């Protein structure tokens, strides 16, 4: 073999990788929590601060945990989809209200509709850290055994909902 071809060979491999790289999103970080039990917590509910909620309460059910905040602009984008999904009663949605003053959060729900069975108030953002939240909104699909099966980072889109989340939910509900 001609050793002078070596640089060209290396370059071609590089270009192939760069071409694949163009189709990837370097900012999306997959969660290491997928396939692991949802981290435990116990927090007051947003509407009834005296009542508390823990993910263990959801054993035996498939559910969505949606992280949202009133200050989060792209939450508004996915919100109508969540409201529709809640009306379809296919899967219960629980909200994790992330680092939000209570009044703002309640006003926001009044204004845009409340798709959540209930919302949990994570004022300090500690549960958010345990769930590896970094870009609100985020949505987790949690199965009957309490294991996280899927995580959507950023707003849920029609596409993701129909092609990924709902089929997965149906599969898990069996």
């Amino acid at each position, binding site marked *: 073999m001609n050793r002078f071809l070596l640089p060209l060979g290396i370059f071609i491999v590089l270009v192939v990788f760069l071409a694949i790289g163009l189709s990837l999103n370097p900012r999306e970080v997959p*969660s290491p929590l997928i396939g692991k039990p949802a981290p435990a917590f116990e927090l007051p509910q947003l509407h009834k601060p005296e009542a508390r909620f823990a993910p263990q309460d959801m054993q035996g059910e498939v559910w969505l945990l949606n992280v949202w905040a009133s200050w989060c602009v792209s939450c508004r984008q996915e919100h109508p989809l969540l409201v529709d999904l809640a009306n379809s009663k296919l899967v219960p949605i629980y909200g994790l209200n992330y680092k939000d003053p209570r009044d703002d959060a309640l006003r926001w729900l009044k204004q845009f509709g409340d798709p959540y069975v209930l919302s949990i108030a994570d004022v300090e*953002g500690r549960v958010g850290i345990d769930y590896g939240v970094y870009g609100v909104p985020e949505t987790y699909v949690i199965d009957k055994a309490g294991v996280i099966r899927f995580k959507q980072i950023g707003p849920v889109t029609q596409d993701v909902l129909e092609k990924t989340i709902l089929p997965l939910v149906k599969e898990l509900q069996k």
Partner: protein
Amino acid sequence: MKRLMIALLCLAAGATGFAREAAPTAEDVVVEKRMVAISEELRCLVCQNESLSGSQADLAKDLRREIREQIGRGRSDQEILDFMVDRYGDFVRYRPPLKGTTFLLWFGPFVLLAVGVVALVVILRRRGRRVAPATALSAEEQRKAEELLGLAGKDKP
């Protein structure tokens, strides 16, 4: 202008006070130092490419608080790094862990160096054997080149 005057007056008034040693912003300087060292190893997830220690993002502030608290609870540096990796994956570490997928990353440069040095020695030896009879030709080349430049005979280094 008026505001400036007032500000200047305040400055003048301030100058008459007694000097005190400023208090550190951090509650505990030792903890803070460890926190900074740890957070420099970690990547801020919401920023473009900044370390946790340099970032002003809210999440970065929360995570720095978390690190401080964990130091307070007596956790080791490694435990704190593991805590972060458990939640955000290897992506948060600026120093990738040594494992199957990072072997090439960590050993690549030194393999490259070894290959380079071996290739160098092999080439030099082979060259030494091949080049000897060709010297006359290359001298001719040299002369021709200098002729082309019109510098023949001058400027010998």
